[in-house]
């Protein structure tokens, strides 16, 4: 089984539009939306939810003012500044370490685990999709990402599907680390700007840190062809395979408004043709076809 994860470092470069377009082109596959923090793939795929499961994060401290003796030990212990002078806990600041809970001399602090999101297995016109919704202002996005990737793998095994296409989150922190570990390869979509170059380089370093092969394509390449050249050069130096260029074209936005992938919306557009070529290049690459550990 193979898993291709679409990532970008910088946000808004076209991850979700590209993931959806790949989905239109791939044979049997499972889709996974690992951008649990601001998931958008469902807006194009309109999944019909078949199975819904609650996701629980860790506990959060709640001080019972009736039992509290106002000794102030919790204030002293909390390294996150989550407890104020009135012994109220700011849930968005509480890290869930439970130190105050365990050490409160009068056991006045409760630590309920809370539902902090949901994950779903759904049907879409492209096939099954595993996706999730993290509650607003919640932590544990990395845990939820790991969970839905495991579920996507399980589903692929059950249905004997050989490919998972995953829409990754932006950045290089916790959810991204959770989204790329153990993936077959990453598809990095970058834009030819100073920010695009900077962010791509950091993500490429992260991919190397975790030893995941990484392909590069430049979106909106004609906005700055010189910068596109620099991105590709930088990519090659970081041992990335350069797999194509996509021109700037409002057709991506138009397709999004129509709720379609760019392939469905206008399959003969320059953008659709470029994406198809990129897809065909990727599926032929050795990195996507070597025997993974899971297959041995």
């Amino acid at each position, binding site marked *: 089984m193979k898993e291709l994860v679409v990532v970008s470092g910088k946000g808004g470069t076209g991850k979700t539009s590209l993931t959806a377009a790949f989905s239109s082109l791939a044979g049997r596959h499972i889709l996974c939306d690992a951008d649990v*923090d601001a998931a958008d793939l469902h807006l194009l795929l309109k999944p019909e939810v078949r199975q819904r499961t609650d996701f629980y994060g860790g506990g959060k401290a709640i001080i019972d003012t009736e039992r509290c003796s106002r000794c102030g030990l919790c204030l002293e212990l909390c390294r996150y500044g989550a407890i104020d002078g009135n012994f109220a806990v700011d849930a968005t600041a509480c890290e869930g370490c439970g130190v105050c809970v*365990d050490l409160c001399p009068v056991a006045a602090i409760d630590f309920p685990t809370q539902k902090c999101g949901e994950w779903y297995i759904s049907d879409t016109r492209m096939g099954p999709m595993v996706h999730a919704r993290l509650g607003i*202002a919640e932590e544990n996005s990395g845990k939820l990402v790991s969970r839905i990737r495991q579920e996507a793998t399980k589903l692929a095994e059950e249905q004997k599907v050989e490919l998972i296409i995953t829409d990754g989150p*932006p950045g290089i922190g916790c959810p991204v680390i959770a989204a790329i570990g153990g993936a077959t390869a990453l598809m990095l979509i970058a834009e030819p700007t100073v*920010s695009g170059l900077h962010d791509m380089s950091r993500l490429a370093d992260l991919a190397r840190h975790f030893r995941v092969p990484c392909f590069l394509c430049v979106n909106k390449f004609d906005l700055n062809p010189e910068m596109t050249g620099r991105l590709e050069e930088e990519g090659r130096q970081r041992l990335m395979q350069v797999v194509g260029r996509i021109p700037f074209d409002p057709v991506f936005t138009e397709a999004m408004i129509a709720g379609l992938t760019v392939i469905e919306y206008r399959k003969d557009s320059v953008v659709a043709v470029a994406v198809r070529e990129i897809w065909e290049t990727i599926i032929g690459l050795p990195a996507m076809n070597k025997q993974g550990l899971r297959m041995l």
Partner: protein
Amino acid sequence: MIISVASGKGGTGKTTISTNLAISLGDSCTLLDCDVEEPNAHLFLRPHIDRSETVKTFVPVVDESRCTFCRKCAAICRFRAITVVGSKVLVFPNLCHSCAGCRVVCPEKAITEGSRELGVLEWGVGAGVSLIQGRIRIGEAMAPPLIRKVRASANTGKTVIIDAPPGTSCPVITAMRGADFILLVTEPTPFGLHDLQLAVGAVRILGIPCGLVINRADMGDDRVREYAGAEQLPILMEIPFDRKIAEAYSRGMTIVEEMPEWKDRFREMFRQITKVALEKEAGRSAQ
């Protein structure tokens, strides 16, 4: 006055807005780049970095000669960052959230303060703006403690503009908490609207007044404006898609450098923000 520039969706123009606003206000403000995973403001301000500091966080170091393997450290750790196997204590520094509970509960004082590098903090001045930025170490998962460090480094006497990371989870909350105003940058597309709704949800949990900037305002549909109307969110600025702006951005140029007449529009936006934030403050003290 602290203004946090956030968005939900990535790539809508947070850095564009925060750098242009900061340049328009000049040396009366400090810009904090709190998108520590991918800090970009420096690419537009091109500051001379005159100070930098490595930021570390607590991780336990166990002195096994004092340890009695009582397992109290493992029992208190909710993150499974420390565990006892027979007569061996294993520490997993990457899982540690630095609560220091293990050190507090250890009856033998066998746990001392070690450290893990979170990233670096840098200070500089560029385009007339003082910039403080955080840059997370490659492979480090936890952004919030570094973001807290960036925030704590700001001179409180000045106007502070925060360039926040995308999303709606803990890093963004850390970059928004305690701000006087949240400026949400969006684009009029289905993805832009969807993520804006999530961001507004986060802002409402924090109870901070907010307003919108609509970027690439003519590329999409009207649903963001309809939503703003229904939710009574003021639209403080609209920036049309302009290939000239996009190309200038790609080279690291700001709007106000390319078109200086925009400075007044950014200053006007700042005046409106100040007004809204003050009204909210007055409303609060009246209650």
